[in-house]
């Protein structure tokens, strides 16, 4: 049976079972380019019914922009028939009935009498995958190209494989200067000499020193200058090759900032140290001459008693009094400077005991009643400091009390994070405008001749409270009384 007879038969009857069973679309085209046979897959792919296809030329299945070329190529093929894949290496497109295009692989087989069998394979999905892959590659390349950090890849021999623009800027090399060269070029001695050994050590033992860890090292620019970097190295396998990617972050600025901070801290520490010594030395050296003045004044008033008149005796009395005042002032400075300078052991301090001890030392006169709340807490702190706290607040309350029936109350409220203590009195009170001033060193409100005060007490209270991370403040109504508040964290010394 002649093949042409089969074809002729097929024009009118059922398609060949062979054609019909194919998964790819198949078309038979005559020498004029008319479609004479098509399978079910072709109907599905192009969206035409078989009868419609038979009325079309093969160019109808090609986007208009390719039609003229295609007709010429078809004539060329008719002249030199053979089995081949159309447009190898070219992107071919087909056109559906609805006007949409799709990418296709087309192979041609020449049949007898100028008939051609065309197999059309829809490669849209493959195309998309390829495009996606290409896009991903472009995107990755863009990231590497635009990265702020230098990205350098090397192979297992340490040869530089890629060098991004940030690396060019950072190291001062053009890619051509470094590609194919050993990575040790970017390191100063002695790392330069050690790197090959290190890489080899890793390759043979698998022991990592930088890979996957990241650390701070020193890098060298083209001009020989060095700079600190943070280097992160990761390893990857491409086929059988092993590559290492180095991410290089310039930390010059960070290092400078760190160095400056360290310098500032050193200066602060030294200034603080000087200040501590200053307070100690000054206080110490001031005391000796002061004591001499006190003694000499005492001897004059004793030895020359008969020669001195009333004024002279009064002047010597005032002199001695001022000497004592200056003495307590110096003691105050010393005590103030000792807080935070001299550290005591932090122990459990029972505040109930502390209040008893402070009151025993202060011995308030009988017209002053002191009410202490029951069950004051036990806190963790330096015992002396807590004693100083209450001693100073209670001493102030007692010293300034101006009512015939004095009343001092000590209380405590527990909050989540801290204890809030209060020491209140029904004394003269303090005007709001003085609230800040009273906590400053050497600041007093009453004339010193009326009430002996150094102005150290409340500043000492403030220093101690703040050393423990607490706050101190006052509420007061002139003529009615004052309440001093302070907080201490429950967790103890900070």
């Amino acid at each position: 049976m002649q093949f042409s007879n089969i074809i002729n038969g097929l024009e009118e009857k059922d398609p060949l079972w062979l054609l019909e069973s194919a998964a790819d679309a198949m078309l038979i085209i005559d020498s004029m380019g008319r479609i004479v046979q098509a399978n079910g897959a072709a109907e599905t792919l192009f969206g035409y019914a078989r009868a419609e296809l038979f009325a079309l030329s093969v160019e109808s299945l090609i986007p208009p922009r390719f039609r003229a070329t295609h007709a010429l190529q078809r004539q060329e093929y008719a002249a030199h028939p053979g089995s081949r894949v159309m447009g190898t290496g070219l992107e071919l497109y087909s056109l559906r009935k609805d006007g949409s295009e799709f990418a296709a692989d087309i192979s041609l087989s020449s049949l007898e009498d100028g008939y051609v069998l065309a197999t059309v394979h829809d490669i849209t999905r493959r195309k998309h995958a390829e495009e996606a892959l290409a896009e991903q590659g472009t995107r990755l390349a863009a990231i590497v190209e635009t990265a702020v950090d230098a990205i350098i890849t090397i192979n297992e021999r340490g040869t530089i494989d890629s060098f991004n623009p940030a690396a060019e800027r950072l190291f001062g090399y053009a890619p051509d200067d470094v590609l194919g060269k050993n990575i040790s070029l970017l390191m100063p001695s002695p790392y330069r000499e050690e790197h090959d050994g290190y890489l080899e050590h890793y390759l043979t033992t698998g022991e990592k020193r930088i890979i996957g860890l990241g650390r701070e090292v020193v890098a060298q620019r083209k001009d020989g200058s060095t700079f600190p970097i943070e280097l992160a190295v990761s390893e990857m396998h491409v086929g059988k090759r092993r590559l290492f990617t180095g991410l290089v972050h310039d930390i010059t600025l960070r290092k400078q900032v760190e160095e400056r901070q360290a310098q500032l801290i050193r200066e602060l520490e030294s200034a603080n140290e000087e200040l501590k010594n200053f307070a100690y030395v000054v206080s110490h050296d001031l005391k000796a001459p002061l004591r001499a003045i006190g003694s000499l004044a005492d001897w004059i008033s004793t030895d020359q008693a008969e020669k001195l008149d009333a004024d002279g005796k009064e002047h010597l009395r005032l002199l001695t009094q001022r000497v004592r005042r200056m003495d307590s002032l110096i003691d105050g400075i010393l005590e103030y400077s000792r807080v935070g300078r001299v550290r005591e052991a932090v122990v459990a301090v029972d505040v109930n005991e502390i209040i008893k001890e402070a009151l025993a030392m202060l011995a308030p006169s009988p017209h002053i009643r002191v009410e202490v709340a029951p069950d004051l807490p036990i806190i963790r702190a330096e015992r002396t400091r807590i004693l100083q706290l209450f001693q100073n607040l209670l001493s102030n309350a007692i010293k300034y009390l101006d009512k015939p029936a004095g009343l001092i109350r000590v209380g405590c409220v527990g909050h989540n994070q801290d204890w809030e203590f209060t020491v209140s009195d029904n004394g003269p009170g303090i005007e709001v405008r003085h609230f800040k001033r009273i906590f400053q060193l050497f600041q007093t409100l009453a004339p010193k001749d009326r009430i002996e005060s150094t102005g150290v007490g409340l500043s000492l209270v403030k220093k101690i409270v703040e050393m423990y991370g607490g706050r101190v403040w006052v509420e007061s109504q002139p003529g009615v009384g004052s309440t001093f508040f302070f907080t201490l964290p429950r967790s103890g010394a900070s």
Partner: protein
Amino acid sequence: MKSTCKAILLVEDDEVDAMTVRRALKELHVNNPLVVVENGEEALGYLRQPDQVMPCIILLDLNMPVMGGIEFLEVVKHDAVLKRIPVVVLTTSDEQQDKVASFDLGVAGYIRKPVDYQQFVEAVRSIDAYWTLSELPQ
């Protein structure tokens, strides 16, 4: 003082402080001779003179030029002959570290010089009273 003929050695650089001790002793009728030297080095020179009769007590200031009190104690308390002489520190310092260092070096007492002369006299009176009562090795 137990022995009224042995000297009291005062190591003190401040002239008025030395006068104060001298006056207080006189006021309290303590008749031991008072030897005043200005620093630790001079004190060692005095103590190490050949045939020197040891003082019955040393009153020691801490802050002095050339050789301070602590440095002096470090030498004296490691000297087989001198270490038995009682030393009472008489100083301005209220620093914990000075007190610790002094007692670590075996001082017999530590008294802060009061700014008030009368209190000073009381301090000296107590020192005298104690060392009149206390026995000393020969």
